[in-house]
């Protein structure tokens, strides 16, 4: 049954849901323009307080939402606050508003929590940096963009904030703008995601075009149930409209030409292209590892916990549409699965601690995508599982990154082989890092176990045995590479002087670590199925399904065991295996030469075969004709330049002659 909610009588937090993104925005303006020049220290305080306020409001919204719609029941979509932004024509306006439903509440909580902790952490980590205030302004801008994206009730607003997220991540990755590598990394991230957003934009336009034209200016024929929960009439660009069964039924029936694919599939694959760009799915993943050039807290915030899940969030948001177009969902599933395997394989060979974590992020994002891809509207367990994993992953991946940051802060190096033996020097970092490693590897009773378990269960339940097997293998790989870096970093002897002189991070840095560690432990016990669901069918929380838990745990144990075997004691065993693998190892270590392939395609093929001829055409034909006309103009100007005496009177004489001519013509016409 539907839960009846009177949208007019919501609580304060609901009615003022715009406060969530507003706090960081105001703080960004204040810090960037006024506070930063005055006091670096104070800007950190203001920025952190702003994000913390957002967190408080987000918590209030979550409480209120689950008070109105108790866990386990129906979870309607509310748009408690909106205003009209762009009015194109009757029946087609674009609003700016805040959407409140389980996944947006979840994302708001995740973003604000992680962002608050990262702010606190950064105020210690970035101490002494000349761009201290600027950093916090950027962080606020980023948080604002991400919250705006999460809160978007329509796809246009989401697109706007999507791009804002891109901009702010560009700014943050290129934070050390004196470093050429940082600059190129930020450019790379920007260009790759922009390329992906092109697809997204075309998808948005396609959806918008058909959403408006299929129903015309008449009232959108979507479920009254959903419309009742909005402050404003539904518009074609609203998610509620785009995912309504009425629209999807009509749109899904349209075929794209004679290809045999429906237009819906095309639109959804295009939208997924944007999601894949932001979430760094396989062919568009190349920017994420390089994006580690930003400061480490930024990596935690952007590239592990929040920004990259935007793609997952988008797919989840549009999930009913994906579900109607089964092919698009299949694409999601297989791209996700492949990315998770691919990234995990690369992750086993990397030596840069942040790079390993980046590839692990890729792998985990693939997991989430995969989970979404295997879900259907009838058995939406994968949907819940994906969100669950997003949630737990945010906790332990942020923890991992912040821990890595702490280590890097102490050792002043990213190379795991420069570290070693740090467990004695940095006990808190060590313990928290270990908790996170265990969590990501999927060991009971930590959070990763539960979420991964659900993903595997959903894959199996929906008959995707191949994906299930692949995911199981990836789980093992995950355990292997995570323990690899853990062991190399924290165990063994001090490999360098730097490691020898390392010491524990200041409290401002380790307190967030501890909080995140606690979260990583307990997050798994949230009955996510009761909180996050889609469709009429309820995803049951399975508890521990031993048919899945046991193989998963065995896989994790295998991975861990291999790591222990190879990376304790001397490193000769690992080297031996690497040597025996030979070319394969090099291939993996070089990340399957994907970057080089890209470079080859862009530099060799596109530049030489497309750009150069076009450039020649532009120079010779387009510019040439322009130049020729300019030359002709100038030549004729030269011919008549004797008239240009530079004196007003001669000009007015010519003018008078012209006027006389006109009058004569008029006169002649009259006679």
């Amino acid at each position, binding site marked *: 049954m539907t839960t009846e909610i009177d949208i007019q009588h919501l609580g304060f937090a609901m009615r003022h849901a715009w406060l969530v993104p507003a706090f960081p925005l105001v703080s960004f303006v204040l810090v960037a323009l006024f506070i930063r020049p005055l006091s670096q220290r104070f800007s950190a305080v203001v920025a952190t307080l702003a994000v913390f306020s957002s967190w408080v409001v987000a918590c209030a919204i979550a409480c209120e939402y689950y008070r109105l719609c108790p866990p386990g029941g129906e979870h309607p979509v509310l748009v408690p606050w909106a205003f009209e932004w762009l009015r194109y024509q009757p029946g087609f306006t674009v609003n700016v508003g805040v959407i409140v439903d389980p996944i947006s509440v979840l994302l708001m909580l995740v973003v604000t929590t992680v962002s608050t902790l990262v702010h606190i952490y950064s105020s210690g980590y970035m101490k002494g940096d000349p761009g201290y205030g600027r950093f916090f302004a950027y962080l606020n801008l980023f948080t604002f963009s991400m919250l705006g994206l999460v809160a978007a009730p329509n796809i246009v607003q989401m697109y706007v904030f999507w791009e804002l997220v891109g901009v702010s991540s560009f700014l943050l990755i290129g934070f050390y703008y004196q470093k050429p590598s940082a600059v190129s990394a930020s450019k790379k991230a920007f260009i790759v995601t922009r390329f992906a957003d092109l697809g997204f934009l075309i998808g948005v336009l396609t959806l918008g075009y058909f959403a408006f034209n299929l129903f015309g200016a008449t009232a959108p024929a979507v479920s009254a149930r959903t419309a009742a929960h909005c402050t404003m009439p539904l518009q074609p660009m609203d998610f509620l409209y785009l995912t309504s069964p009425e629209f999807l039924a009509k749109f899904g029936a349209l075929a794209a030409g004679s290809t045999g694919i429906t237009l819906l599939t095309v639109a959804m694959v295009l939208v997924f292209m944007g999601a894949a760009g932001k979430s760094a799915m396989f062919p568009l993943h190349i920017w994420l590892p390089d994006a580690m050039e930003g400061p480490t807290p930024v990596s935690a915030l952007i590239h592990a916990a929040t920004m990259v899940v935007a793609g997952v969030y988008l797919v989840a948001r549009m999930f009913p549409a994906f579900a109607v177009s089964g092919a698009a969902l299949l694409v999601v599933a297989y791209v996700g699965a492949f990315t998770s395997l691919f990234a995990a394989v690369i992750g086993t060979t990397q030596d840069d601690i942040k790079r390993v974590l980046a590839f692990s992020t890729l792998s985990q994002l693939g997991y989430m995508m995969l989970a979404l891809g295997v879900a259907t509207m009838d058995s939406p367990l994968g949907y819940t599982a994906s969100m669950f994993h997003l949630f737990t992953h945010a906790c332990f991946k942020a923890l991992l990154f912040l821990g890595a940051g702490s280590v890097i802060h102490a050792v002043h190096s990213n190379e795991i082989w420069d570290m070693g033996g740090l467990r004695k020097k940095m006990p808190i970092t060590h313990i928290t890092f270990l908790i996170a490693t265990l969590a990501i590897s999927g060991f009971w009773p930590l959070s990763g176990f539960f979420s991964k378990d659900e993903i595997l269960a959903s894959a199996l339940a929906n008959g995707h045995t191949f994906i299930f097997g692949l995911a199981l293998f990836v789980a093992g790989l995950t355990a292997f590479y995570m323990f690899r870096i853990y062991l190399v970093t924290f165990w063994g002897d001090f490999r360098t002087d730097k490691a020898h002189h390392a010491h524990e991070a200041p409290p401002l840095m380790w307190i967030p670590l501890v909080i995140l560690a606690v979260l990583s432990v307990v997050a798994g016990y949230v009955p996510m199925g009761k909180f996050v669901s889609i469709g009429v069918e309820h995803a049951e929380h399975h508890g521990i399904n031993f048919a899945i838990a046991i193989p998963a745990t065995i896989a994790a144990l295998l991975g861990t065991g291999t790591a222990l075997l190879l990376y304790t004691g001397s490193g000769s065993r690992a080297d031996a295996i690497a040597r025996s693998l030979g070319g394969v190892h090099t291939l993996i270590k070089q990340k399957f030469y994907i970057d080089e392939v890209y470079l080859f395609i862009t530099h060799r093929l596109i530049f030489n075969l497309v750009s150069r001829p076009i450039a020649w055409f532009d120079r010779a034909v387009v510019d040439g004709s322009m130049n020729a006309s300019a030359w002709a103009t100038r030549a004729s100007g*030269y011919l008549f330049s004797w008239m240009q005496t530079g004196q007003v009177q001669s000009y007015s004489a010519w003018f008078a002659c012209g006027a006389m001519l006109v009058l004569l013509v008029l006169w002649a016409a009259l006679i």
Partner: protein
Amino acid sequence: MNPLIAQIAAHSPGLRDWLALTSVIFSIGLYGLLTRRNAVGILMAVELMLNSAAMNFVIFNRFCLPARMDGSVMAIFVIAVAAAEVVVGMAIFVALYRYRGTVDVNQMNTMQDPVISIEGPGDFNREVMKNINKQYKSRHDH
């Protein structure tokens, strides 16, 4: 009735007579505009021209649309614009006189570009700038 008076009254001016009058005044102003060398003289000629143009509005208003005042309103706008023009014009002349010691328009030809080349498409601007540069240099070298 006196036939002379009747004859005179029969020649009461019509629209075309009025327009002919303004044409004459305009042409006189044009003559002044073309022949005067002094900027103030030119400005006075321009005033004459503006005046005759404004009168055309009133004439057409009177003869073609007598119940309205649009022509008068337009004439008032013309007068206002003329006032603004004179203010700025006079300010410019005074400033010019102060800086150049002359208001002879024959000597105000620095806008004339002596550098015009037809060597074909090339960096035209740079060439012009180079020549202006040269001109400045020569001016300051003396």
